């Protein structure tokens, strides 16, 4: 793996993660991360759109006039979202119904247009594609993490409703972590998403701080002071 790919991986998954660093695409992130399966479904959909749009934007980057690039990116993204929506409608109808409005809303996911504008429109196709993949994966990971947390806290289960995404065989995947009659509704409700996201971001910052403290290297450099004044009078 070359340096660029390594850097892109790091950027997408950690350093510049769209969900917890750039805080983009919060609307679907907060809304559909109630369970792991919902989160995974939306995450995959977003990743696919991101991949497609990054490739396309990168392909056309040299022929798009600067002034109207944003409308064009939006059209590209909208087309891919429509494709994904139709695919989900066809193959994972249950999930399609659960996610509802949030699939079309991927069009307005700032993470996607953000990558198109910030990266894909300036780099070659292979890098843009890889960037899209990594950013999408980073986004999906956070979604799944948040979904898992909320699902465990709120329902006491994991992977409930897996059949919606993977077909009927997957209904056995559901894990019951604990049984309760007093569900912690707050975790399932939107405030739970905000709180959960806050804690994930806090955890990330703590880890970063620890890493930084460990790898504190002192690079000494010497700077030559400029003589402001000439004396060649």
């Amino acid at each position: 793996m070359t340096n660029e790919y390594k850097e892109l991986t790091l950027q997408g998954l950690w350093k510049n993660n769209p969900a917890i660093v750039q805080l983009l695409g919060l609307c679907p992130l907060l809304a559909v991360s109630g369970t792991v399966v919902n989160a995974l479904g939306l995450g995959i959909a977003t990743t696919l759109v991101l991949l497609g749009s990054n490739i396309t934007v990168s392909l056309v980057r040299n022929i798009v006039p600067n002034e109207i690039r944003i409308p064009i990116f939006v059209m590209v993204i909208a087309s891919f979202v429509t494709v994904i929506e139709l695919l989900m409608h066809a193959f994972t109808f249950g999930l399609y119904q659960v996610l509802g409005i949030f699939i079309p809303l991927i069009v307005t996911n700032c993470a996607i247009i953000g990558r198109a504008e910030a990266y894909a429109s300036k780099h070659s196709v292979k890098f843009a594609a890889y960037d899209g993949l990594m950013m999408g994966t980073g986004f999906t990971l956070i979604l799944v993490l948040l979904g898992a947390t909320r699902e465990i806290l709120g329902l006491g289960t994991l992977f409930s409703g897996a059949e919606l995404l993977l077909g009927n065989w997957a209904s056995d995947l559901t894990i019951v972590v604990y049984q309760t009659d007093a569900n912690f509704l707050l975790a399932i409700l939107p405030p739970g998403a905000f709180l959960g996201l806050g804690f994930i971001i806090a955890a990330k910052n703590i880890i970063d701080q620890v890493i930084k403290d460990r790898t504190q290297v002192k690079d000494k450099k010497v700077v030559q002071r400029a003589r402001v004044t000439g004396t060649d009078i």
Partner: protein
Amino acid sequence: MTKLQVASSPHHHNQRDTGAVMRLVVYAAIPGIAVQTYMFGYGVLVQLALAVVTAVVTEVVILEIRKKNTERAVKDYSALLCGLLLAISIPPLAPWWIIVIGTFFSIAIVKQLYGGLGFNLFNPAMAGYVMLLISFPVQMTAWLPPVSLTIQNVGIWDTIHTIFTGYTATGFSIAQLQATVDGATMATPLDHIKTALSEGYIISEGLNNKIFNASMGVGWAPVSFAYLIGGLVLIKAKVINWHIPASMIIAAMAVSAVLSIYDMSTHASPWFHLVNGSLIVGAFFIATDPVSASTTNRGRIVFGALIGFWIIVIRTWGGYPDAIAFAVVLMNLAVPLIDYYTKPGTYGHQNKVRNMAKPSPAKKSQQGDK
């Protein structure tokens, strides 16, 4: 070696520190708590003890983690007060973990995560209450009837047993305890009216119930009045200003008056709204929490009035019977905005330098306009 004391003026200080202020609020709540205990049983005291212990322990642990001065923070009694306010708001026989989770949430998340005393955006007790109410609606609405109406005599041992196991020592569940003398299941007055209205009854029919005594909820109205006394003491002692309680109560009464004039049969009277539920305790003890309330006097009036407005709106059209917590938390959000637009005019800024020799008529009329 005694050190030379150099300091900025003033060298004189009022002797009432934060701890004293908070203590006064706690003392002022005592009559209310006493009446509440008398009316609703020992559960109130048990919840109070649980809440206070949880609050102080949480505060200490988090302050230790944050490497802050623990001792002084505990001595300011703010955690204790927060636990107290939460404890008096929840049903006396709610399971123990309700109050523990609620208090922990109030202190750890709502107060300390925002930076501790003075930095919290929301009223910790009310944010904790909201969290509990939306997370555990069943447990949070399981109010017992006032002691005078119950068939079961719940003693102190029964109370503790119920709070920790869900059943009295003799094996009754909360649902059984909720039954009144005439066998009807009991709810709070506000709940009762809400249910009655949803079942198509009109207000006067709803009031025609054992739990009401001249439209005052048995047990509820005395508690309100006891808190009112404490609140007036607080105003007298200048711990709180009159602005928030006054504007809040007046606004709530005004809104409900308008509504009940509009339609007597489906909207309860202002008097009903005042004495049933937590309007008074909210106005004097909860909305006046200095940290999360507005900080200017004009702002306090706006803040209180809007809380009063929301209380009636939520009680009338909302999904929950009582609304203090929602209204307070909602208005906490608006505080920075209110503060910004209610800055008092600084001395000397109304009139910039004028010419005294000939006060021009234009300027005079301008003043008149002001």
